[in-house]
């Protein structure tokens, strides 16, 4: 009986237990109802987010051709190793697994990922490019153990001519965080490859094309399962440059190992035929994802290989500037072609003597002889009479001290001093003695090799200042046709044709007259006119000590009677212009003439 009672109590409590279990099941059902029905929409959206991913399709970047159709820049397929941060479950383990393939230490990779953390977590972060087919196969077969690791096929930029025309072409690179903020890249996603220097940068908008997108279904490792929809990318336009690779290579080999720059342009149109700067870099190398070390190595190189000496290097114009002085003197009536002065190797001024480069003097000198033999005393006197502000006026007229407007980035404008400039910049009045230095292209004066070429070009081109340019045509990807651009005339200087004729004749004399300083440019193929120059680095006493040697200039055009081509050569620390720079110009001009025939 007692047992019976006890069991009845137990039965009752089992009843409670049943109530508890029913309650628990009901709670589960209620929770499921809440998640599936009430919040179902929210979770469905999350599931779609998980599953569907918008993937960027990079367009092909436009090719770059020279004026003869030779390829200067193109794309080749490259397999890159990318990490999709959102898909990586265990970063440490993943990095450890891919380290043998990337050859980068896990710490370095981690640092790299940390640096790029702000970019889209669903787009692959390229950690190593140019991996081999064997490595691709390895990664694909290990896919299940490497969630978030992807092989990304990309068009890699290739410059078949390597270092040749490097400064002109520039290079490409991944868009930086600060560039992403700029309005011109507003529609570009992170990770996009854009032009970073040279033509690649200036015409990036034409070359880069527009990205496409596709919606793909991905699995939990981020691997694509199927494509849901596609918006095709638009390839960039191919562009044609005015550059002639044959001349470019000639200019580069003529310059050889010496640091310096060569600018070659078409006299009438201002089209750049060659633009060399030495030392150069390999744009193929810079267009890859560089390790910090390699980049540091390039940036800290004392020779500054990234610096385009043709448009960014500024040097005193030296005696080449006497061309501007002569034009100004003739125009303003300070000199006449028959006027003669006596040069005895120097000119006393104030309490010092301004010396001529030729210690024994040039004797009796007229304009022709002053240019041909580059007599300094003639120009000391002329400069003294004209005053610095008049010199500045004519310098500007010939495009010095202002940007030429060439289609390359970060062009320097150099400096043409004036009394006003000195007051503003140095808080000091102008001293008349300084005018004498400026008159022979020294002192505060500084110009780029491109400006120097343009100045001489203006003389050769009947006083018309044109805008130098590199882009010749665009092969439009959308409109399927080629656009060419007419030359741009910046201004007519209005210099008297007779004055220009006198100067040209004297410039011919520089090369052909027995006393001329540019005899080294004498050619049997065509008649070359030109002017030598020496840009002082430091006071003359230190000369001969290598890096204190003067820079050598030579600016020329040819043929004299109907100029077609203008060349400016600068050889850093080359010494005298006639010896170091003139032969370079001659080689380039002869190559041009050979091809023109």
């Amino acid at each position, binding site marked *: 009986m*007692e*047992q019976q*009672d*006890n*069991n009845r*109590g*137990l*039965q009752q*409590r*089992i*009843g409670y*237990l*049943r109530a508890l*279990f*029913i309650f*628990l*099941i009901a709670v*589960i*059902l209620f*929770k*499921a*109802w809440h*998640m*599936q*029905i009430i*919040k*179902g929409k*929210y*979770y*469905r959206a*999350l*599931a*779609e987010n*998980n*599953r569907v991913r918008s993937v960027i399709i990079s367009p092909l970047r436009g090719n770059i051709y020279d004026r003869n159709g030779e390829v200067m820049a193109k794309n080749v397929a490259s397999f890159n190793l990318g990490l999709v941060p*959102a898909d*990586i*479950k*265990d970063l440490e383990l993943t990095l450890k697994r891919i380290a043998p393939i990337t050859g980068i230490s896990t710490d370095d990779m981690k640092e790299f990922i940390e640096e790029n953390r702000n970019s889209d977590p669903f787009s692959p972060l390229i950690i190593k490019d140019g991996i081999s087919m064997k490595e691709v196969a390895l990664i694909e077969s290990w896919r299940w153990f490497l969630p978030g690791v992807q092989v990304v096929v990309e068009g890699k930029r290739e410059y078949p001519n390597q270092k040749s025309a490097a400064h002109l072409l520039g290079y490409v690179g991944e868009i930086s965080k600060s560039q992403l903020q700029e309005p011109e890249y507003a529609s570009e996603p992170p990770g996009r490859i854009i032009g970073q220097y040279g033509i690649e940068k200036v015409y990036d908008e034409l070359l880069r094309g527009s990205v496409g997108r596709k919606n793909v*279904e*991905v*699995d*939990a*490792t981020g691997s694509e*399962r199927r494509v849901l929809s596609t918006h095709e990318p638009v390839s960039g336009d191919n562009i044609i440059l005015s550059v002639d690779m044959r001349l470019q290579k000639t200019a580069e080999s003529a310059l050889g190992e010496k640091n310096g720059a060569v600018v070659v342009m078409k006299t009438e149109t201002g089209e750049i035929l060659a633009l060399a700067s030495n030392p150069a870099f390999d744009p193929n190398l810079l267009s890859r994802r560089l390790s910090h070390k390699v980049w540091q190595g390039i940036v800290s190189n004392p020779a500054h290989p990234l610096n385009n000496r043709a448009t960014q290097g500024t040097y005193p114009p030296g005696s080449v500037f006497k061309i501007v002085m002569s034009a100004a003197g003739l125009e303003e009536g300070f000199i006449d072609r028959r006027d003669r002065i006596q040069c005895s190797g120097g000119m006393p001024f104030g309490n010092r003597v301004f010396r001529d480069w030729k210690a024994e003097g040039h004797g009796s000198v007229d304009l022709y002889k002053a240019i041909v033999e580059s007599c300094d005393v003639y120009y000391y006197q002329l400069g003294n009479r004209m005053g610095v502000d008049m010199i500045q006026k004519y310098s500007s007229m010939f495009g010095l001290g202002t940007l030429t407007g060439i289609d390359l980035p970060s062009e320097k404008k150099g400096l043409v001093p004036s009394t006003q400039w000195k007051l503003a910049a140095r808080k000091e009045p102008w001293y008349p003695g300084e005018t004498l230095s400026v008159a022979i292209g020294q002192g505060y004066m500084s110009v780029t090799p491109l400006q120097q070429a343009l100045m001489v070009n203006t003389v050769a081109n009947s006083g018309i200042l044109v805008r130098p340019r590199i882009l010749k045509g665009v092969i439009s990807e959308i409109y399927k046709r080629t656009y060419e651009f007419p030359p741009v005339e910046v201004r007519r200087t209005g210099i008297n044709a007779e004055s220009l004729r006198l100067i040209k004749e004297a410039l011919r004399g520089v090369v052909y007259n027995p006393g001329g300083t540019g005899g080294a440019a004498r050619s049997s193929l065509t008649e070359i006119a030109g002017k030598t120059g020496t840009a002082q680095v430091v006071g003359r006493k230190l000369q001969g000590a290598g890096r204190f040697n003067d820079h050598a200039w030579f600016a020329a055009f040819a043929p004299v009677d109907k100029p077609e081509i203008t060349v400016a050569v600068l050889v850093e620390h080359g010494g005298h212009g006639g010896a170091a720079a003139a032969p370079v110009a001659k080689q380039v001009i002869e190559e041009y003439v050979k091809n023109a025939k």
Partner: protein
Amino acid sequence: MLNKGTIALFDWKAFILIVLIMILGLSTIFSATYTNTPVNATPLYIKQIGWIIIGIFFLLTGMSIDYQTIARYAYHIYAFSFILLLVVLVAGRSGFGAQRWIAIGGFSFQPSELAKIATAFAITRYFSDYPARHGYNVRELVIPGILIAIPVVLVLKQPDLGTGMVITFVSVVLIFLVRIRSRLLGILTLLILMTFPFLWHIFWENLKQYQKTRLLTFINPSADPTGTGYHIIQSKIAIGSGGFFGKGILQSTQSQLNFLPARHTDFIFSVFAEEWGFLGIFVLLILYLLLITWGLDVAIKAKDRLGMLMACSIISYFTFYCVINIGMTLGVFPVVGIPLPLMSYGGTSMITTLFSLGILFNIRKKRFLFY
């Protein structure tokens, strides 16, 4: 074994419930492993059919052995499981940071599965041997307390938080069922409340790092969405996105695209919920509930106190496994790694579940027989 009387007294209604749940489980295993099955390998749902056949054999075995016989050997079984638990601690095979397995021949065996049943049998035997009409007092609870504490500590040490939790829960249910003196209940409650911070501290300090993070991510899953919170988040997305009708078999994106981890084992409910929706969940839970109430009914109608307690412990295990597993997939329980009975892939779970349900069949059968 299968004599005439056994067949006549076989509870077809409960058996059909069990088979229905197993079929739903099989179809979900089929779907969950569909994309990941290598071409040459035997699909897991085929293997599971094998486990089910073996399991049914065990069910019939459980049904044929007199539960009173089992009770007679309860302490022996308990001692045996204790030895196995010690062996696993010393020489066990670890998986996922825990040492839970013993390899015998080609098979892996989880001693904690035996331990939980052995513990239930042992305390059932004790309570049945020493009935106390007006409830038990402290002194009488010392022995069952020790019987519970030993396996719980050993299982937690593996560490197997889930099994430890379930053994504790079932023991509490049993103590509640046999009644303890209300004064004692008050003292015990007070004692637990007073020592709770201290106990919690010991508990927390003894957890492995992965268990701590599991508990922390249970509290806030979005704190580490790609790490440990990943399971819970992906599981909730799978279940929630199922909606009312579900996405259909093989159409579950969360599962087919591998977002769901452990989806044919611990997270099989998430796959089921994604593919069959609320409608499917409703049907499944009703099936489970019918089986549970059937089991409690067996308990109520059992012919003796031993049968009642044994039936209750078996069905409590079953229920807690279901509730904790589903609660874990819904994100209302921390991830403790216990399977969903009759649904999850796995031999040990299938065999022990069906064997213990077989004992229920035996208890039910015995009430019709008079010796």
